[in-house]
């Protein structure tokens, strides 16, 4: 197969905040950069980050990076790497000011300083009073950052390959990544992009689940590519769920609804949270509420024709309170369910929101994998940043406002390291046709014609299996069944046939490629979750309700090629300060 080739210093996969922050740094340093994005860059999922970005600027309350670091270590239930967390929290202020100078329209305090809002998990003085740390540009911080970075990249002459889909990495015999096979979605034509350095910044994989807040583009593409290139995925069992998403659709119904007096009921009209949390009831922590909803549904007390959700009641609050204090929820319900929560309860179910795990990297953004006795050997020239990566700064659970910070800090860190790498590696590593043919093989499989299963049916089964077996309710038995279910679903993929073999905007082909990525990431997630016999952060086991620091204070690493799990220690030593030793996580 003769496929055209283009060469760049750096290939960046993904045009969200992480990819664009890195691209800007590189293009300004005169590196020749290609950014490949399957959708137009400003339609990346970074636009959904409305809350803001954490930085201890102390504009509202006293604050410093060390307190931010403590909160992040504690929030991650002591699974985060403390060197990376120190690095991130120290860099935060600088990154925010840099964005301000680049044109991000942050909201302002009366003093003229950047507006900051308080978020859950933020404290002063290592667990003391509430801190106010999240810098915000109204309710569109992610959107503002993404648009600013995109415009700056256009100015810096970054090369964009918009609506190109990255299919697979091109690797040499030693497993070194030389570039990627990509497809122009508009024409169906293939293009090989070779690069001296490659940054994976493809975002998350919320589409693993039937009920998710994530956009349809979040299919774990970079994670799937990494797995197939022999890179393990780290800590994939840690997936953050929000207790109340619109059932079957996933959009968030804010916790404010329960804060204003809304409560949950099952099919018998019972206010079931009274059984699970007799004191705080519906205001119990996220994981308690999520699990309670899941148990009600599992035990046959779910609502609706499929008994697959519970109801959130707001109708007793009166139309004034709902209209004044919860207008967003009313808009969402009216638009998507044609119901007014003033009169009718809202069908809800826990919704998948953010994956803490991903492609293992160090704090320079370099991809690392175990080799011999070394748990973290650097893969030369390969980098990852953002939700697809696991540095790990979020540990077992992410704090609000830390995800935008993650993409900015480690997008920049990766770019800085890339610039050093490019200085010392001035030429492209040799490639050949054989390496490209290997990557092409998988793609070509989708050109088989005839009868077979559809992508849609397998994708629906995969999402349902993940929701049933790897959601918020986790036990040995449920997850063992889940492993078998995912394996069976993966085994059906070779029998899928695309009825449409045309080239131009063949979205069916793109969805088939996305399905393969999801299926690879699904088995990594399911296997890692089944193996971890403790409850830590977002991974909550009914049969192992406690955190077990003796056996499990370690990172999981799942490898696809031999379907195996390995582990590596948590980096508990920060860069310059004392270690925060594990303590019981109480708020």
């Amino acid at each position: 197969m003769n496929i055209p080739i283009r060469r760049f210093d750096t290939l960046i996969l993904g045009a969200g905040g992480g990819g664009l922050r890195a691209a800007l740094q590189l293009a300004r340093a005169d590196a020749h950069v290609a950014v490949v994005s399957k959708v137009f860059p400003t339609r990346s999922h970074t636009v959904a980050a409305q809350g803001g970005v954490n930085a201890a600027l102390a504009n509202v309350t006293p604050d410093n990076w060390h307190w931010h670091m403590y909160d992040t270590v504690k929030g991650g239930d002591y699974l985060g790497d403390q060197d990376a967390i120190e690095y991130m929290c120290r860099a935060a202020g600088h990154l925010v000011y840099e964005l301000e100078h680049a044109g991000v329209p942050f909201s302002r305090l009366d003093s003229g300083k950047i507006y900051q809002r308080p978020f859950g998990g933020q404290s002063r003085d290592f667990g003391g009073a509430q801190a106010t740390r999240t810098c915000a540009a109204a309710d569109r911080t992610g959107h503002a950052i993404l648009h600013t970075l995109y415009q700056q990249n256009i100015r810096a002459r970054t090369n964009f390959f918009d609506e190109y889909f990255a299919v697979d990495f091109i690797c040499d015999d030693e497993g070194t990544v030389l570039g990627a096979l990509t497809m122009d979605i508009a024409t169906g034509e293939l293009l090989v992009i070779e690069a001296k350095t490659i940054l994976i910044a493809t975002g998350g994989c919320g589409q693993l689940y039937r009920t998710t807040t994530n956009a349809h583009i979040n299919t774990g593409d970079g994670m799937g590519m990494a797995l197939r290139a022999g890179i393990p995925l780290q800590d994939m069992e840690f997936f953050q769920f929000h207790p109340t998403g619109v059932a079957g659709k996933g959009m968030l119904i804010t916790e404010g609804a329960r804060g204003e007096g809304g409560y949950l009921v099952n099919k018998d009209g019972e206010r079931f949270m009274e059984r699970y949390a007799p004191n705080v009831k519906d205001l119990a922590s996220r994981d308690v509420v999520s699990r309670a909803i899941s148990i009600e549904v599992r035990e046959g007390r779910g609502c609706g024709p499929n008994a697959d959700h519970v109801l959130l009641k707001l109708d007793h609050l009166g139309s004034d309170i709902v209209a004044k204090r919860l207008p967003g929820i009313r808009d969402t319900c009216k638009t998507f369910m044609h119901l007014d929560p003033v009169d009718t309860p809202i069908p809800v179910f826990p919704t998948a929101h953010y994956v803490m795990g991903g492609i293992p990297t160090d704090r320079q953004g370099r991809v690392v994998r175990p080799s011999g006795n070394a748990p973290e050997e650097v893969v030369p020239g390969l980098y990852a940043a953002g939700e697809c990566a696991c540095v790990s700064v979020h540990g077992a659970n992410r704090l609000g406002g830390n995800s935008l910070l993650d993409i900015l800090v480690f997008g920049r860190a990766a770019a800085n390291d890339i610039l050093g790498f490019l200085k010392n590696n001035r030429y492209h590593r040799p490639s050949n046709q054989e390496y490209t043919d290997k990557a092409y093989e998988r793609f070509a499989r989708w050109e088989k014609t005839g009868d077979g299963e559809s992508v849609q049916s397998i994708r629906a089964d995969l999402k349902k299996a993940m929701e049933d077996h790897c959601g918020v309710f986790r036990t040995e038995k449920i997850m063992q069944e889940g492993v078998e279910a995912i394996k069976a679903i993966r085994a059906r993929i070779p029998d899928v046939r695309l009825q449409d073999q045309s080239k131009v905007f063949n979205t069916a082909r793109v969805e088939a490629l996305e399905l393969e990525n999801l299926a690879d990431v699904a088995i990594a997630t399911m296997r890692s979750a089944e193996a971890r016999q403790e409850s830590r952060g977002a991974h909550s086991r009914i049969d192992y309700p406690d955190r077990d620091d003796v056996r499990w204070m370690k990172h999981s690493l799942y490898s696809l090629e031999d379907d195996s799990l390995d582990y590596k220690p948590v980096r508990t030593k920060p860069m310059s300060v004392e270690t925060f030793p594990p303590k019981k996580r109480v708020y």
Partner: protein
Amino acid sequence: MGNLERQPGLERLRWQCRRGLLELDLLFEAFLDNGYCSLSDVDKESFNQLLEYQDQTLQEWLLGKVTPEDEAMVHMVKLVRDAT
């Protein structure tokens, strides 16, 4: 996704309807399947224009928080909402 016969123009639009926000994905997908094909040529052109707006703006319009200034967009927002 769609259950319509393949139409290259429609497939291009289907990809333009992949957005950064789940809410927009769901609204646009439903509209392509349930409303777009019966539009007049003028309205089809308006829908193309609508897709050029930024995700946050579209979300505010389509969830009914803000009304567009352009009459053609007001009309199109109503059609998309009605198809969901």
